[in-house]
């Protein structure tokens, strides 16, 4: 009885429910816009994307102690302790925008031993190179996102001519981003970028609502995850941006499952297919979350880039549950009910 009520409620209000994700997407976008106006960037970049030095020393000296002792000698210094799973400190990490030649002697003086490969890891990256890494990674994520959407369109759309146009446009889009985006004046580049994006979205929206839904859902995942990452104050590394690529892959999996189930159904009601897809999809997402959480537990004490990748994935996968089963589901139901109605007429 209860179930039937939910069913009815859903059938009546699914278009209204869509307002909820729409609202959250808008809030996320507004927050990111605000964040950009404050920081002149969409994320807090860590040293691997701004340039500087990271020195990791085997030592149990406290982070605060080091900070107070050296803050005046080393400009822009940040320190962080690495703990193992029992809570014992194993290493201390010193992050600064300065070059290693400047920092190492000061640290050696303070610690009283020579920093060499047996006790220390040093990573340095120049600022122009790191700025370029950041640009490249941004382009890579943008291309990945649009090509993913193109594949979904090619698979779910009906007309071959349009599929061909979509592929061609996306290839041109790739060449534009790779070869021209940074060599044109910024306003012209942004104008061409916007033209590409609007054209592609128009094609998807007009000729394949399901592809558009998948794309919107992946977009929502990325935007919301980005907002959460900014809110918790995470400093994003190059590998962290790659985690967003992983997120696209994972989030699309459940969307494709849902779309295929609903579109290829025979006579069963849409809600039935949605519910069965939900059972499968939620198992998929939960196993992924479980696997990543367990892996994170084991590698966390080492303080590597894997930590950040896993945390971003955990945030993204959790948000994906919302986006797949509310955002995408309501859209695909709308589409399926409409086509069903059209075919009845």
């Amino acid at each position, binding site marked *: 009885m209860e179930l039937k009520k939910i069913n009815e409620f859903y059938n009546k209000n699914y278009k209204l429910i869509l307002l909820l994700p729409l609202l959250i997407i808008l809030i996320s976008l507004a927050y990111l816009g605000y964040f950009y106006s404050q920081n002149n960037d969409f994320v807090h970049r860590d040293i691997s994307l701004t340039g500087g030095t990271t020195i990791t020393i085997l030592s149990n000296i406290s982070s605060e102690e080091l900070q107070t002792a050296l803050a005046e000698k080393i400009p822009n210094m940040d320190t962080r302790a690495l703990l193992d799973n029992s809570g014992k400190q194993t290493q201390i990490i010193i992050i600064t925008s300065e070059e290693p030649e400047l920092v190492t002697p000061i640290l050696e003086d303070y610690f009283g031993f020579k920093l060499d490969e047996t006790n220390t890891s*040093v990573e340095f990256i120049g600022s122009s190179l790191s700025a370029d890494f950041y640009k490249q990674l941004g382009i890579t994520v943008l291309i990945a996102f649009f090509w993913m959407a193109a594949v979904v369109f090619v698979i779910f759309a009906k007309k071959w001519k349009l599929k061909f146009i979509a592929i061609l446009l996306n290839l041109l889009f790739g060449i534009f981003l*790779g070869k021209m985006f940074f060599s044109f004046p910024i306003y012209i580049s942004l104008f061409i970028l916007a033209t590409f994006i609007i054209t592609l979205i128009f094609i998807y929206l007009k000729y394949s609502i399901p592809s558009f839904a998948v794309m919107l859902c992946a977009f929502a995942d990325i935007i919301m995850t980005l907002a959460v990452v900014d809110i918790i104050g995470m400093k994003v590394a190059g*590998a962290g941006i*790659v985690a967003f690529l992983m997120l696209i*892959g994972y989030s699309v999996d459940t969307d*494709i499952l849902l779309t295929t189930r609903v579109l290829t159904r025979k006579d069963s009601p849409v809600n039935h297919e949605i519910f069965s897809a939900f059972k*499968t999809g939620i198992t998929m997402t939960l*196993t992924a979350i479980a*696997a990543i959480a367990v892996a994170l537990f084991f590698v966390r004490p080492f303080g590597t880039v894997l930590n950040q990748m896993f945390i971003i994935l955990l945030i993204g996968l959790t948000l994906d549950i919302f986006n797949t089963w509310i955002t995408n589901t309501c859209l695909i139901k709308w589409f399926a009910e409409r086509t069903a109605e059209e075919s009845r007429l």
Partner: protein
Amino acid sequence: MKLTFRIWLLIILLLLSIVSIFSLTPAFLEKGVAVKFVEKNSTIFEQGLRAGMIITQINNVQINDANDYVKAMSIFSDNQDHKMAITTKTNQVIAVLPSNTPDKIIIGALSLTKIKTGLDIQGGARALIAAKDHKLTDSELNDLIAISQQRFNLFGLTDMSIKKASDMSGNNFMVIEIAGSSPKDLENLILQQGKFEGKIGNKTVFTGGEDITHVERSGQQAGLEGCYPNQDGSEYCTFRFPISLTEEAAKRQADITSTIPISSENPEYIAEKLDFYVDDTLMDSLFISKDLKGKVTTQISIQGSGSGPDRAEAIKSAQENMKNLQTILITGSLPYKLEIVKLDTISPVLGKSFTQAILLGGLFAILAVSLIIFVRYRKIKISLALLVTSFSELILILGFAALIKWNLDLPSIAGIIATIGTGVDSQIVILDESRFKIVSLKERIKKALFIIFTSFATAFVSLIPLTGALQVMGIGAAGAGLLKGFAVTTLIGITAGVFITRPAFADMIKQFSDE
């Protein structure tokens, strides 16, 4: 269970992967120590011991591990020279060795598998080099790499790789990676500019670049001369090629040689030799014919050699040395200053415990997933099949990585985890699709494979830009290729998954549900 074609394919590829990981003669059955480094200017190096060899016996005593090696080398603790017989898997060195020999060799344990880990796991040094205030062209980058190779070889470093990289704005970089250790004065070594000098006594006759008008790179007079066996069975090959000096340098040579007497031991030649230095390290010496004494000649012949454990290796080494030498002579010292734009020296201390943590993490992650699957489906057989399939994907990735000598770095490991994650997702799709009893099982599996293939295709196109395969479109591997490992391992994994393991899993499930 009936073994279908797809399951057979999986089994065969698994076996091949295991061979690729452990090799046909598994290393854990082998005994000995691996030579990691031999200093170039040492007796033991001249006798033919090289990095990469495996020492099995010293003075007819079996060497099983590092302890045995240290014990055998303790013979030098009396600070005397000793006659030693060092047997490696490929050759034997019998020679009187000076007492400092143990300091000239660095050894390590044999690696159990053929899998190579990246610098961020096993430790080592990595540098990204660019020209200061100058955009390196492709040919300049090639020359720079040749010069650096030469310099590192002179230093005795062999376990390293030098690669090219470029960024979005078309800047070229040289990426140097040295595994395991980081040489002390790495920065100086890298930033030197590749100086070639021909000296007689302590007087410089000519330097690379400015004093040279032409270097014959190929043709009749340039090339290998011949190969000869060394006493220990290894071989060396010599090469020569002519160069033309400027009038000025030729005159300098004439002035210097005119003051040098004819050699008393070797009356065909004059008493001093023409020495070739690369970055102040003596590389080779030539006798100067007495006919050339005091004569202005712009044509001279440069000689050198290369050696190796067998003839093929010796030829290869001689050809490489010749090419590098020619490069230095043509370019002279670099016309631009170098700068290090990225330098990482990663301590290897964490390597071992980190590998253990990763393995444990992976194991428990798969167990956690299997548990969820068991709770959901309540069938031990299905959970086991899923476990087996996930492990197979792992083994296939590792096998392929070992085959193409891919260095597994942290991004690669993230890629492997991503693959296993999507693999599990696909298997759940197969399981659930096969449970709908309305249409035929075949139809249902087909639908499952369609979903899986679509997911695969989206993941595939979204990873391609990161591999650097789209360089023609201006999309280079982001981060100078440092994050390429993620894309490559994931691509290997999902491709193997979609074409091999997941179809095999579908076949297994088909049979289970028939039962």
